[in-house]
């Protein structure tokens, strides 16, 4: 996945710019070409999980809501 662009930051990006995502979410995102820095996480502390990535792929509108 591309690195953080000038995108609105989702809750899952920590101050250091690291994205908190589950290993499964990362694998799926890299395959689907979903930029994790644009995904809102629904896990504890905004951690991105599988279903968030799948949702982001189907309807990118989630990004706006999370920003």
């Amino acid at each position, binding site marked *: 996945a591309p690195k953080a662009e000038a995108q609105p930051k989702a809750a899952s990006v920590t101050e250091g710019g690291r994205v908190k995502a*589950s*290993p*499964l*979410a990362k*694998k*799926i995102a890299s395959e689907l070409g979903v930029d994790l820095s644009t995904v809102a996480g629904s896990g504890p502390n905004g951690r991105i*999980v*599988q279903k968030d990535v799948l949702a982001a792929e189907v309807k990118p509108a989630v990004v706006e809501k999370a920003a």
Partner: protein
Amino acid sequence: MSDKTKVVVIGGGPGGYVAAIRAAQLGGEVTLVEKQYLGGTCLNVGCIPTKSLLHSAELFEEAKEGAKYGIVSSDVKIDFAKVQERKQAVTKQLVNGVKGLLAANKVKVISGEAAFTSKDTIEVKTEKGTETIKADKFIIATGSIPAKPPIPGIDSKQCIDSTGALELKEVPKTMIIVGGGVIGVEIATLYSTLGCKIVIIEMLNEIMPMMDGELTKMVRAKLAKKGVEIFTGAKVMSFKDAGENVEVTVEMPDGKNQVFAGEKALISIGRRTNTATIGLEKAGIANDRGRITVNNKMETNVPGIYAIGDCVGQIMLAHIASTMGEVAAENAMGHNNVFDSKTNPSCVYTKPEFASVGLTEEAAKAQGVDYIVGKFPLAANGRSMIMGEDGMVKIIAGKKYKEILGAHILGPRATDLIGELALAIALEATIDEVIATIHAHPTVAESIKEAALAVEKRAIHIPNR
């Protein structure tokens, strides 16, 4: 009057007392009503007593086999009265602990039997009379009781339920166990180790049907070695009190009847929810033949009334009751939490232990999931070898991403080892992360990494085929 949220919890088992403590932590004014014993089934006639007796049985077996390890002793015998005394002491200590915790959290405990009289009121029958209590929120946690199937002769004096089986004064010479679920298998393990000849009659085609079939077969083989006979696809038709023994007539898989005689017959075919007398209809609480209907917030159809644990009739396990209890308490106190069973471990205290989390291979198949399996036999694990044990670690991973879908362990310490894999499922980990985690040597846990490696046919300590 206090403006705190008033919460009443009905039932003091692992569901109820945990819910009560959690609600109190969150600022609730909490009352717990318990009609019989704090700690419920679990502490008094369930988890704890079985495991205490099983621990003694394990020590007995180890003592008898001590010579193999250089421990010499003569006349190893079991003092069953002492075994029961020890069980009693452990139970008592834990029940007192619960009492203390409730007090420390300022939960008011009422000894009595509760029943709803309306949506916001219960009546509690205590020794001193009847008390009426109104509250903002109710959490129902009345648990379950052993099911008693309508089989002719089931009232014969030799027929006992799990509670009876845990309170025997002597080890019986023979026992017929009707129902090969977890409770049946644990009690078979217990008494067969103590010298009782056991026959298990199970109606389904496999004992412990929710566990992984391949590992269950290994358990069956181990039980067989102890002289436990298991008949599956077999149906009990009747019991007959024949004086010393009970005669159990069983329709065998071939359709023919066979009679088994036993000093005791344990009925362990399941448990049913304990909700018949709590006034569900008075409060208008929806239920399915006594199983209270709840959503994943543990809410019933009646606002402000929650139900948790065995009485919802979903997964009848103590840690599930407690987890549901936490969720209900948090929601009752205005927080927002949901119950999810995906990390739920199932444990059976056989020797060695048997534990499972997530999908079994059977379930993966049935659900049409594309999966891949990694297995590691504990015969190749140094720590297990030292302990004289064997078994297997089996991991079910998604075929494409290798995420961990399920894990099954038969082996020493399995009930504790499963924790790592439950966390792996919680975190949506793949085998890569399990492999990248350094596992200490020499431990049984190393086998978890090996099983993960085996998913990709690159285990180190077994040849990969």
